[in-house]
Every structure is written in structure tokens, then in C-alpha cells.
């Protein structure tokens, strides 16, 4: 399964990169989200994956009786997910504002002329 995840993360990164190379701001956003997902999978995979053993101690015991999945990558990813949600939300709204201003999601329409006094 690790090999499949390796493939998945590679393709997530690839798709993310492909999308951030586009002109559309929506695609840019999607690309950023995909890159985030790719990173999460990478952390998840490299922190070593364990099947069917959540890091939750059995209700009848005080310590783990069995092997369990590494909880740290999970906590890290959780934080990363929440942070990227914050960024994504803000970015989406930024997109909305941009669209309201230039009436397009083409990033090239957003460029301000150099001479303009800002």
C-alpha cells in the first residue's frame, strides 16, 4: 500500500504544480489545495502507516496493549489541515473580491500597470 500512497502523493503534488502554473485563479486555488493534500499524505506516509490500530487507548486499559499508529503525524496533519482551511477560505474570498473587481478569474487581468500611482 505504501507504494500506492507514494504514487498518490506524487500525483497530488504534480497536479498541484500543474494547476498553479495556470492562468485561472480558481485553478490556482485548487492547485494550492492539492499541494496541501499531497503534503499531508506525505507526512502521513513518512510517519509510517499502520492499519486498523487507531492511537486510542482501549477503554478497559490504561496503556496500549497492542501496536498502534503513530499519533504525531496525525496531529501534525490535523494542524496543517486546519491551517490550510484558514488559508483556503481567505483565498477563496480573495478570489471573490478579485472577480468583483476585474470581472474575470484570469490572473493576467489583475495586473496593474507599472506607472499607476498606488
Amino acid at each position, binding site marked *: 500500500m505504501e507504494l500506492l500512497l507514494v504514487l498518490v502523493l506524487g500525483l497530488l503534488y504534480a497536479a498541484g504544480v500543474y494547476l498553479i502554473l495556470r492562468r485561472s485563479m480558481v485553478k490556482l486555488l485548487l492547485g*494550492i489545495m492539492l499541494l496541501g493534500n499531497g*503534503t499531508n499524505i*506525505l507526512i502521513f*506516509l513518512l510517519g509510517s502507516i499502520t492499519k486498523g490500530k487507531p492511537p486510542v487507548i482501549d477503554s478497559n486499559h490504561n496503556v496500549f496493549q497492542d501496536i498502534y499508529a503513530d499519533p504525531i503525524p496525525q496531529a*501534525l496533519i490535523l494542524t496543517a489541515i486546519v491551517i490550510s482551511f484558514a*488559508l483556503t477560505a*481567505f483565498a477563496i474570498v480573495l478570489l471573490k473580491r478579485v472577480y468583483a473587481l476585474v470581472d474575470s478569474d484570469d490572473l493576467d487581468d*489583475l495586473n496593474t500597470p507599472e506607472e499607476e500611482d*498606488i
Partner: protein
Amino acid sequence: MIDNHILAPVFIHLFTAIIQLIAWRKTVSQRFLSVGGTFIGLLIAIRLFAKVYTEGSLHMNASNWEAPFGIVFVADLLSSTMVLLTSIAGFAVSIFSSVGLSRQRMLYGYFPIFHFLLMGLNGAFLTGDIFNLYVWFEVVIISSFVLMTLGGRKAQLEGAVKYMAMNILASTFFLTGIGILYGITGSLNMADLAIKIRNFDNKALVGITSIFFILGFGIKSAVFPLYYWLPSSYHTPPSAVAATFGGLLTKLGIYAILRVFSLIFIPDDFTRTLFMVLAVLTVITGAFGALIKTNIRRMFSYLIVCHIGFMLGGIAMFTKLALMGTVFYLIHDIMVKTNMFLIAGFIRMVSGTMDMQKLGGLYKNYPLISLMIALVLFSLVGIPPLSGFWPKIYLFQEAFVDKQYFFIAALIIGSLVTMYVIAKMWADVFWKDVPEGVAIEDKYKDLPLFKKLLLVVPILLLCSVTLYIGFNAENIIIVVDRITNELLDTSPYIRNVLGDKAFEQ
């Protein structure tokens, strides 16, 4: 040594921001809170610095879990110096903002977010945990996004989109690096990582990991060819915001490089060569850019890039003298760049534009302020004996020893262009009369004296700090010398965090 109050510089801003949020839309109280908060923050930072200076490095195990299991915060001299500088800059910008910023922006949360930004910076400087550093980076990034877009004019949005996209990319690289680092060591504590990476046999993999940090921090500190976000965006937000950005954000990247590459990835030949090549190109890029810009802030933006190259060059050589140059430059740069953008704001205030072609007559109308500004500008150029001069001596010295002739050339070109553009700016903005047909809207003139002071005092404050750095270089060098020792010999840092057990294995 343990000190549970290390995070005070963080919490002061957190609580200030929270109280300001509660006082939502009450701009007067927010202003007072902000100036008060940054002032207390400054006192706290001074206390922290003094304590670290006299008693040595401090650390704090958050949640009371011993390192490497909890998040550890470390205040060594580098951290506490950065916190101190941030606090000074923060205090100045806070005062400036209270008059220099439109009320509309204050109504929509400028001050709380400004404090969140300062909080994030202080946190980033103090943390001893690599993932926690990522969190602080994100705090900084998101607050800077918001500050960047605050106002929502088209140019701002353009800047913000680019700023955002590339900074998120930087975070992606950074986080990927952290993931890999965790994958090969199973640790996140930087001191612990230092040991584990040293004992890790597959050096090639360590090298690969370090690339991600180079990319992440490289984007953050606007190094060629990763710098694009900076000149795309720094000219767009209000000057008070740009001042915080210009003074502190790229320097956070430099700090991170210093920290991570002194502690975890000790630069090998490849990394050093890479840094050097990038440093030279960064200086050149910044210099070329600054040469052709007529908008003051666009020009400043490129100067930031240019001078980042100086600092990176010092890191590239990674010797005592070179690092002293970098650290000294870092200290100087934070104060001066912050002030530069405040000055830009002042110029906008008195003339309504930032375009050098439309500006003029400042020296005639405001001679004393102009002379004060001149001092700042000269400090930036590094006119001896002002602050920018001293670090260059170290950089030149080490570059000759290391035979880095390209870097020497870059130093000369960078300094020369800086001098040229600043002189040109002086000639155009201060000397020249207002061009014919340009209507000057001087908002400053009609302000009451108190408000005028609030605009000028921060510039004066930073200016005096800069002068202090320049004329009392000896004191700065003593600090810089100790910081550099910390960077070159990290075993005290590691021992501070992990205790003696760290070296038993």
C-alpha cells in the same frame, strides 16, 4: 535555565489583540491599546534580552513536558535580540499607525491583526520546535495576507494574490521538509533533531531534506530566484503595514535559515556554494530592480531583495566573521527597512504620491525632518560610520579570506546601486522642486501638533536606534559576537534544551 515567562512577548500581543477584538470598531481604544501593548511588549522584550544577556540562554517546556516530547521554547541571544528588534519596530509602527492609517482600516481590524503578526514573529523567534515554527510562520503569513489586502484596492489585491500564492508555496516546501525530517528522525524538537541528524548515516537524504528548507525559507526571505512575491506586493499596502513587512518578514526567513542551518543542517560545500551563488544573484537582482523603479516603495522592495543577498552571502561563507556580518546586518536591516517604509508613508502623507517623478520640495518644506530622513537613508547605504557600514567590513573581510570574488563584486555593486538610488531619491524627492503641473496634497500640514509628533516620533525613534547601532557598534558587536558563537557551537543550545543526557549517547 528554565524560565516560564519566555512566551510573555507572545502573550502580550495575543491578549492585546483579543482585547482589541472585544473593543471591535472602537478605534480610539484600539489605538491606545496598541501603543500600550507594544510599549509593554517592548519592556518585556528588553527584560528578556537583559536576562538572556546576563544569565545566558533560557528555555521553557510548554505543557511541562520535557523536551523532546513537548514543545520547547528557547530564548538564546539570537532569539531575544530578534524579539527585541521586533518589539522596537512594532512599537514604532504602532505609534505611526495611530495617525498614519485611515480610520476605515482600523474599523476593520487593522490593530488586532497587527498584534497577531507581532505575536507570530516573536513566537517564531522563540520556538525550539520545527513544526511549531511552521505554525508561527502560518500565523505570520495569514496576518500578513490580511494586512496586505486590508482596503481591497485593485493593486493591493494583485499584490496579495501573488504574495499569497508564493508564500503558500513556501509553506508547502517547508511542511514537506518537516514531513521528511520527521520521517527520517521521528522527532520535531530542533535540538533533538540536531543530534539525530548528526547521527543519521544517509547524508544524501539529509541533503535532500535540507533543499526543502532552503526553498521554503528562500521564498520567505526573497532570495533569487524565489523572490518574486516581494516586489509584486510590498508597494501596495499602507506604509505602516509595509514597514512591518519590509522590516521583519524577510528577516524572519533569514532568521529561520540561520537557526535551522546552524542547528540541524550544518551547511556542507554544496549548500554553501548554492547559498553563495544565490546570494550574488540576489544582490544583482535587487540592485538591477532598484535601479529602474521610480516609485519609492517599489525601489525599496528591490533594495530589500538586494540586501537579503548580503546576509545570505554571510551565511554562505559560514565562518565566524561572515556570520557576524550577517547577524549585524540583520540587526541593522530590521531597524532601517522598517523606518524606510515609515518614511515612505510620511512622504505620501505630505505629498500624496510615491512616484519620484511627481515628488519634490520636501527639503525646502521640512528641512529638519528631511535631514533626519537623510540619516536613515545614509544608514541604509552604509555610509560610515552609520549602521550599515559595520557589517560590510566583516563581509568584505571574510569574502577576501574565502576568495569569494563574485561576492565582493556583488557587495560593491549592491552598495553602489543602493547609494545611487538613494542619492537619486534624495535629489528627486527632497531637493527637486515640485514638478510643474503636479498638485501636492499635504495632509500632514494641517494636522494638530500632537498628531504630527505621532508621525515623526516613530521615525525619530528608529533613527536614533540606528544611530546607536552605528555609533556604538562596539556594543552591538559584543552581542553579535556572542550570537555568532551560539550559531557556530550549538552544543550549549542543545544542552540547554535537552540537558546533559543529549550527549550521553
